[in-house]
């Protein structure tokens, strides 16, 4: 395949911009370069003081109900609660935006009879962390799989199915992932008892 390939310094690319702060996350793709995530200054202490007022919405140009979130308080920049049939559309929109799938997880709200499915996304080039959440009925937890948009969702969905019993419709291989092959229990449900 390759020729011996003389020992070249392969590394030493000096990529990102000025050391101190975030790579200025201005232009969020075409439409409106909305104000972008609060350009946080070099903060010496733990929660960096948020200079921006009510937290601007970095994804206001998207057709999804995103709300800006104070990063310093919550750890993400935008949050959207969508209906269960919108998750694929949300994934497609965020995929076009250049985001990457961070993880998928569930939260069992037993008292309310609901399961929350949480999709975390991050942007591989700028400070933009996005949460998409939806709620489905707890007694029949079914939601569409987004593995066609993000193939990485495959394992996260299997794991969520393991832990909560949420069925991801259209998933190619919804078999136990972390639990034994014959597992028929969902340990992170709040009413789980061995």
């Amino acid at each position, binding site marked *: 395949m390759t020729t011996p390939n003389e020992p070249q310094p392969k590394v030493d690319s000096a990529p990102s911009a000025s050391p101190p702060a975030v790579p200025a996350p201005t232009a969020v793709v075409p439409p409106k370069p909305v104000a972008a995530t609060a350009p946080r200054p070099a903060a010496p202490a733990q929660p960096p003081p948020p200079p921006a007022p009510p937290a601007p919405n970095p994804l206001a140009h998207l057709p999804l109900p995103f709300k800006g979130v104070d990063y310093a308080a919550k750890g993400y920049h935008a949050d959207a609660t969508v209906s269960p049939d919108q998750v694929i559309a949300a994934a497609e929109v965020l995929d076009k935006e250049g985001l990457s799938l961070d993880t998928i997880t569930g939260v069992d709200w037993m008292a309310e009879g609901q399961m929350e499915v949480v999709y975390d996304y991050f942007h591989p080039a700028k400070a933009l962390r996005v949460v998409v959440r939806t709620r489905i009925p707890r007694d029949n937890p079914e939601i569409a799989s987004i593995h066609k948009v993000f193939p990485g969702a495959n394992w996260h969905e299997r794991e969520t199915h393991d832990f909560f019993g949420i069925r991801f419709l259209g998933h190619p291989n919804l078999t136990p992932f972390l639990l034994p092959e014959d597992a028929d229990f969902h340990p992170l449900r709040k009413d789980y008892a*061995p």
Partner: protein
Amino acid sequence: METPESNAQLLSDCAPYVKFAKLDEMLALGRANSLWPLTFGLACCAIEMMAAGASRFDISRFGAEVFRPSPRQADLMIVAGTVNKKMAAAVKTLYDQMPEPKWVIAMGNCAISGGPFVFPGQYAVVEGVDKLFPVDVFIPGCPPRPEALIEGLLKLEEKLTGKRRWPTVKPE
């Protein structure tokens, strides 16, 4: 006429001259000085097992550096880490595949009892590998230091030969 009594008499008569047990002792000495552990890391403890085999701690000072990737060639299984229910069958198979005589060291709290991963209602962890097969030496710690693993090896040698190779260092 040979009777059991006469045989016993004969054995006791020649006991000062012939020692059959010496062969066993010699074999035990050989085994104790060249334990071949199975390369079998499970979790955190496996890193300390690697450290025990690497430069500073150098387990080969005690003849146990020949880590074998195949259970068929090993006579010592160091269970280094948590065994869960999905893994238990595989661990048991590995133990069964090792030829006799064989010994087992349970390294770390997880292998001893499930360690920090045991709580009421737990669903995954095997609470101690002695539920799967007999264990000769238990080494506590989370994870145990490499010195502790070496001490465990010495304990196992002591079990095999009946005497300790090195004097015990008393804690001050």
